[in-house]
């Protein structure tokens, strides 16, 4: 078992290693690899049944804490995609850049506190290598009206 997966087990997270349940839109795909760069699509907080587990906006349907949990779920879904792309989570050298889009209403502006849910998952699993430059952006709307979407650019070990 890889180092990252042992960490996952220790913190009680499981990934299925099968990304079939995480949908990608019609013309897009879940990831692309170019040399030592892995580009991952903007992911929604999908549940095990392949449907959005959270639907609504921060500041209206969801509180900061609920948004944080949705962001963690996006992180867990992304681990599934990474494992599918690279075969082994330990092939992640380090995270480069993450964009967190937060669906907001009524002037909600605690975007970083919500997006930290995603970042916390990555640092719990990859340690220092899970840290990344991150841009948080409040959106007036997101696909399926989910509260958060995150994408990532990751450096792969050669």
């Amino acid at each position: 078992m890889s180092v990252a997966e042992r960490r996952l087990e220790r913190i009680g997270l499981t990934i299925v290693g099968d990304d079939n349940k995480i949908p990608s839109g019609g013309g897009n795909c879940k990831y692309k690899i170019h040399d030592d760069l892995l580009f991952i699509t903007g992911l929604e907080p999908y549940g095990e049944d392949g449907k959005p587990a959270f639907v609504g906006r921060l500041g209206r349907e969801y509180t900061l804490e609920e948004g944080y949990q949705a962001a963690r779920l996006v992180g867990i879904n992304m681990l599934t995609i990474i494992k599918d792309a690279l075969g082994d989570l330990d092939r992640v050298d380090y995270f480069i850049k993450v964009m967190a889009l937060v669906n907001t209403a009524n002037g909600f502006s605690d975007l970083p506190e919500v997006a930290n849910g995603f970042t916390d998952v990555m640092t719990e699993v990859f340690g220092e290598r899970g840290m990344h430059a991150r841009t948080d952006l409040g959106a007036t709307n997101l696909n399926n009206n989910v509260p958060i979407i995150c994408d990532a650019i990751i450096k792969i070990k050669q």
Partner: protein
Amino acid sequence: MTADERLARKAYELNIDYPKNLRALVSVRRVDNILFTSGSGCGTFRQGLIGSDLTFEDGYLACQHIAMIQLGMIKEYLGDLDKVDQILRVYGHLAVADDFHDLDKVADGLTDVMGAVFGDRGRAPRTILGSRNLPVGNTAAELELILSVKD
């Protein structure tokens, strides 16, 4: 058929002429064999919010229009679209009404064109968000690309 020929055919089919002579603008930058394009809107082609001022179909057409502009920029820069290896990432904003949630299907307007021109290499990871007040009198969408080119 070359990618350039497929672009010309798509331009005819959609009746959208992709822009030429864009040199006045810095529209593409290259690092090694990765290209970054500027975000482009569809100008006055479609303006307003998708889901209230504009229909779903309008939004899809706007994204198709932007795909042609982006391909025009890339063709201008590379000279030959067959130098494109793959599209690595699509990022963009759609101007949408409060209760319009079908953003991915609207953005397919762009990725469908990329698929038609580049095949599977044109499929790409995508990050799309709902926005307001895009440039040019609230143009309906603004999209940018990261792509790789063959050595």
